[in-house]
């Protein structure tokens, strides 16, 4: 599957408090509303201007902090097709796969704000169409690939009636 869209660049250590802050705790049971504020504390323009298919591009340790699954969920709900970063915090990474949001580890120094990207999930490549460079991303562990292909963890359990990961 190929994904195409514009890059929204963020720095290192983007925390779940940037993505889904505690001051909006009361919106956690209203995810479409919470999604209107996604990442606004890191870039106020982002939730207003992000378009379906766009990419969130971080630096090191993207998604550090709390276990709130609402963070990857609202990134996905905002229309983002994948998150690219040099590295991810553990819980965010696992949550993103569980909610069916691709998370790709690559050298994001090769991507600037608003670059046009094309991601080939099967081939493991990212074309930066603006800069004319091609990046590769590390393949996901087998277990996570299975979950992602089933459409997330809930869909996986629904399909098999159990965890079928071994």
């Amino acid at each position: 599957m190929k994904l195409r869209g514009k890059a929204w660049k963020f720095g290192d250590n983007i925390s779940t408090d940037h993505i889904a802050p505690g001051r909006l705790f009361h919106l956690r049971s209203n995810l479409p509303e919470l999604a209107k504020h996604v990442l606004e504390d890191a870039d106020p323009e982002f939730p207003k201007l992000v378009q379906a298919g766009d990419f969130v591009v971080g630096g090191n340790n993207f998604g550090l902090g709390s276990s709130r699954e609402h963070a990857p969920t609202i990134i996905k709900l905002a229309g983002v097709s994948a998150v690219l970063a040099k590295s991810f915090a553990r819980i965010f990474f696992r949550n993103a796969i569980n909610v069916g949001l691709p998370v790709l580890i690559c050298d994001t120094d090769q991507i600037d704000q608003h670059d046009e990207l094309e991601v080939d999930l099967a081939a493991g490549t990212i074309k930066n169409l603006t800069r004319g460079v091609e990046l590769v991303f590390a393949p996901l562990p087998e277990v996570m690939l299975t979950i992602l292909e089933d459409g997330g963890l809930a869909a996986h359990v629904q399909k098999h009636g159990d965890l079928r990961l071994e």
Partner: protein
Amino acid sequence: MGQTLAEKILSRKVGRPVRAGEMVICPVDVALTQDGTGPLAVRQLQKLNMVRAACPGRTVLFIDHAAPSPRKELSNDHMLLREFARETGCVLSDVGAGVCHQIIAEEYARPGDVIIGADSHTVTAGALGAFATGMGSTDVAMGIALGKTWFRVPETFQIRVRGRFSPGVGAKDLILHLIGRLGADGATYKALEFVGETIEEMPMTDRLTLSNMAVEAGAKVGLIPSDEETRRYLAAMGREGDWQPLAPDADAEYERVVEVDVSELEPMVSAPHTVDNVRPVGELAGTKIHQVFIGSCTNGRLADLAEAARILSGRTIHPEVRLIVVPASRRVFLEAIDAGYIRELVAAGATVLAPGCGPCVGVHEGILGDGEASLNTSNRNFQGRLGNPAGFIYLASPAVAAATALKGEIADPREVLA
């Protein structure tokens, strides 16, 4: 080849020897959610027609993050959690009982357990020798219903600690120092294993502080061997029968060994906006502080309140500071009342709030104004954490917090104690 604590616990649970790097499907002993993550977990189970728990007596739904509720939306979420507990027989820990991780330590965690929680600081129970880790709502929902989850067995960093703390310095300074050294992502996906003479002599209350913050270096678990101190703590909680010894093998394989000598350690402070931005208190002394928060799953225990009371007793906090004190659990609150600490803190000017998370996550009870700074004994200082992205958060020990409340600016407790 010997096993690390993480390998040993998971091997016993899955019934065969496992090594770092392997994927395992593992039974779960205790599962927990809180009011920020529980509603999503409940809705997932409802959507899948799986409104049940494999082990309801050891599945706990906590209401601690927004407790008592400040808004109707959250009150409705609380109702959903109460209803789910009624339907499934799961345990509900309602408003005023305290912070999830404190209650898990007091009432549930056993050495050798596997504990999953929809809260990143679930790692706290590692202090009791439990493989305890944080996950998202869906992972924990599936764990609740199926009674199992999957893990990649983590590699381990062994943290060997030696030396005696000098007065005014303690476990919080040690863990802040370590996070500064490792970096906020220095131990991502890894297990931390705390060992050495300093840990052996350390009371459980301080061990819980260490394990609690393992996640701030990115770690999956923060484990401490189960020893006589673990037994003593469990006995004090009325459950000595839950004790068993647990130690890593002498020939276990570690990805990295980190040595720390605490005898020269100073009080440490983590400055905005990342936890690994750690400095000795002297470098930040004099920074104007508007609010001090003593509490949370990191440092809201009896010994923490005692330390603050010792510094503040018979004195008055600075007129331009709000001091917010939140006991971590009802048990802690009652013991602090009996010991007179609450009286001393209130007399010094503190505002005492119901056991729970208090202002820690920026939902209620102490939101900062634009440009204001808070010094907290909690574990995170990310931008926006106290409900306002235009606020600034410093993290430190209860001793530094009490000294800072007295002075109205970041202060070295050794000067106040002297």
